[in-house]
């Protein structure tokens, strides 16, 4: 076999960084820089550079035994026919076309595809387009003032250069991220009620925040209000390669968030779960707890292009081609449709068969793609909403002998991939309080267990402990932990 070169998009977040994947004669993968890609000029972050580790080929399985994809699809059809208490989940980690083909299966079953972001259900639908609609990344460079509610270095690294360019053009940056940002002119901590008066935003400003499966809807509302009141543009960054696409093309009504799906499984109202490139073991804050929940399912049917941990637990795995090889497109956070050069339709064909077996419509790549392109033009709307009512957001004060462990969600965390992030961040006050020694460790204990971690010291608010990695002690976005020196 000759070397294959694929033009594709990094699945690490929704910035949509273009790249080449080179697959040599032995099947070894390497990334190469695609300098003509307007979202990233070919530049990639740590995650993008490590993509060869991320793309691991999945194997189709039925009841723990290797199977061919046809057998797996047939087995899935048999399980789904007449099944009750079903749910479907696709967070947006594959192509638009696969998402739409997956939606046809949902139509055949009379259910919706959940994209896992619970916040949407809590926010009036007239606001949804403001959250999902893309804004050109170039606009960041033109803003005169930027309020940051994320840490670009860690969470969405290809924003860093945009922000630096904005500064060169005269912008000032105020950061409300959980650690001080080098590129910010001001690093502040402001109560949501005071955003409007304290942040100095106007209609030449931009608010940059994000929305993901564990986002607090109250914060989204606060920021939508801030945008409304100041006239600032608001940009919601998103974590998955097609996060923008799935919200634009999917059905937004009756959606469940990841936590609700887990609650549904725990209370028995969901017995069969079908997922598309969405591994709940990776996506939920606590892997062990998620595993315990998924064990309660009667049927777990996983369609995936990656070999991820949930495949081991699934009753059926329908393994599709790797993401870079698929025919299809993604929509990035700007609303740009980015096409893969790959031509394989294994995944779509499998979903088409499954849909037909269930009495639904067939899916053919070209038809879906054309329809999708037509709706790109139709769906854009100007934001229209009025001020939203917000609850007061409270974070429990950390106890005397501990702190609040907060996850800084980032591309590695969303897929629980190893990185050089095996440490937590604390501030000097905590070092003094706990008597942490240089080269020593910090022990963190919560209801979920205990872990010893290396630590590094940065300027962060008192009582906070930050992690960029999934830890077994985590129980939610913020976990109260007992901290000790070891």
């Amino acid at each position, binding site marked *: 076999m*000759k*070397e294959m070169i694929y033009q594709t998009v990094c699945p690490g977040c929704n910035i949509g960084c273009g790249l080449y994947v080179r697959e040599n004669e032995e099947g070894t993968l390497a990334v190469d*820089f695609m*300098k003509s890609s307007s979202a990233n000029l*070919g530049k*990639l972050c740590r995650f993008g550079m490590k993509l060869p580790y991320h793309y691991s080929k999945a194997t189709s399985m039925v009841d723990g035994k290797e199977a061919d994809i046809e057998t797996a699809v047939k087995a899935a059809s048999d399980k789904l026919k007449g099944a009750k208490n079903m749910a479907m989940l696709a967070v947006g980690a594959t192509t638009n076309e696969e998402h739409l083909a997956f939606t046809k299966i949902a139509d055949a079953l009379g259910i919706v595809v959940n994209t896992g972001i619970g916040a949407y259900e809590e926010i009036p639908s007239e606001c949804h387009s403001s959250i999902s609609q893309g804004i050109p990344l170039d606009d960041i460079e033109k803003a005169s003032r930027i309020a940051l509610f994320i840490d670009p270095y860690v969470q969405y*690294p*290809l924003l860093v250069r945009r922000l630096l*360019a904005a500064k060169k053009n005269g912008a000032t940056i105020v950061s409300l991220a959980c650690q001080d940002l*080098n590129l910010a002119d001001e690093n502040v901590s402001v109560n949501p009620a005071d955003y409007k008066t304290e942040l100095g935003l106007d209609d030449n400003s931009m608010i940059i925040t994000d929305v993901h499966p564990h986002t607090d809807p109250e914060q989204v509302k606060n920021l939508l209000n801030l945008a409304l009141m100041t006239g600032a543009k608001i940009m919601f960054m998103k974590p998955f390669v097609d996060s923008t696409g799935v919200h634009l093309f999917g059905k937004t009504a009756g959606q469940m968030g990841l936590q609700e799906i887990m609650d549904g499984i725990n209370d028995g109202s969901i017995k069969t779960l079908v997922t598309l490139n969405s591994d709940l073991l990776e996506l939920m804050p606590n892997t062990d707890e998620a595993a315990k929940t998924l064990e309660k399912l009667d049927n777990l049917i996983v369609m995936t292009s990656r070999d991820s941990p949930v495949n081991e637990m699934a009753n059926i795995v329908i393994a599709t081609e790797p993401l870079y090889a698929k025919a299809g497109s993604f929509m990035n956070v700007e609303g740009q449709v980015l096409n893969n050069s790959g031509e394989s339709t294994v995944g779509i064909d499998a979903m088409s068969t499954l849909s037909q077996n269930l009495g639904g419509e067939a899916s053919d790549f070209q038809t879906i793609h054309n329809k999708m392109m037509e709706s790109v033009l139709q769906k854009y709307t100007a934001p229209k909403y009025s001020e939203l009512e917000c609850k007061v957001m409270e974070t429990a004060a950390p106890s005397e002998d501990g702190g609040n462990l907060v996850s800084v969600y980032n591309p590695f965390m969303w897929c629980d991939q190893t990185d050089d992030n095996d440490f937590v961040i604390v501030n000097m006050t905590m070092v003094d309080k706990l008597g942490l020694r240089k080269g020593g460790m910090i022990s963190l204990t919560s209801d979920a267990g205990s872990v010893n971690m290396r630590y590094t010291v940065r300027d962060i608010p008192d009582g906070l402990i930050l992690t960029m990695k999934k830890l077994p002690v985590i129980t939610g976005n913020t976990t109260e932990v007992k901290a000790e020196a070891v």
Partner: protein
Amino acid sequence: MVEVGDMLVGYATDENIRSRGASGGLVTAVLAAALEKGLVENVVVMKHINEFEAVPIITDDVEEVLASTGSLHSVPVNLAKYAMGRKVAMPAKPCDAQAVIEQGKRGMIDLDNTYVVGLNCGGSMHPVTTKKMLIEMYDIDPEDVVGEDIEKGKLIFKTKNGEEKAIAIDELEEAGFGRRESCRFCTLKIPVNADLACGNWGVIGDLAGSATFCQVMNEKGAKLLGNAIDAGRIEVQPASDKAIAIRAKVNSVMEDLGNTLEKEIFPDIPDEERMQYYMEQMEDCIDCGACKEVCPVCACGDDAKCTMFHSLVDNYKMSMYHMVRLLHLSDSCIGCGQCSDVCPSDIPITLLQSRFAIPSQRRRDYKPGMNLDTPPFFEVMLK
């Protein structure tokens, strides 16, 4: 008989290749002949996607070689790494050829089995910047561009409807467009370090635009060219004295420009401010490692000194990674610009590496990537 030192003007005998070629298709024909006649097993060429995008491929298919005609000024890749571990022929800008030789010094490329067809290089541009420049400066839709050329200090774009528009490179660079920063201070314009040095400078009279000036730099070059003549792929004739003089004149103007720009690009920094300067420039680094991965002279694998001593848990003001790289590349950095191109934080890493490397290279009268005569010196001067 082709001999070392020959200065020739030539073109592809196949009319189609000749007309598609950047200037006569000689380079393509030489590469194709090397493959056809078994001089090499593979050829590295650029596979065109569009005017602003191409991807290097390693091929043993003559048709793919023949399809790769044309110079892509807006595809600033370095080709050296694609030549590793193979018996290949390749086109090479001066910086590609330099990197091939640096890799050769470190045993990563077998120079006896690597045939390097050098291309003169006045500079390359970033594709996205070029598209923006076309819209803002040329009033041309990038989609309409079918070709480009550099002539008499002007950058010329040709469009679908047969029109041409030229703007002085100086003017473009003043407006923030034009060549990449590394190309502005690059002074190796004719690849005398390659086996053949090809370009359109010195192609005059009737042949202008449809032939290539080619200097035979060494025995391998003579073999390459002789092979293409024997295969009936090219025709050559001796270059006239006038042609040789014009080529030398343009080259010296370009070298002077590079030297002038170097002074502008690297203003002096007082010794006591140097450390602070490097730290400030690198403070937005996200440690992605792309600058190492892309570096065409870096011969270390995954377990490299720069990554081995570096961990994100450390709180150094400037990372160990960069400290080690500054030192380690001081004898090999060729200022090719690849690291700046791929840096996600837009850190001018090429400028930093070059600022660090150039003084010690100069003191030794050592220019990396020129020949195998002098081994790498690895001496550091904190200047």
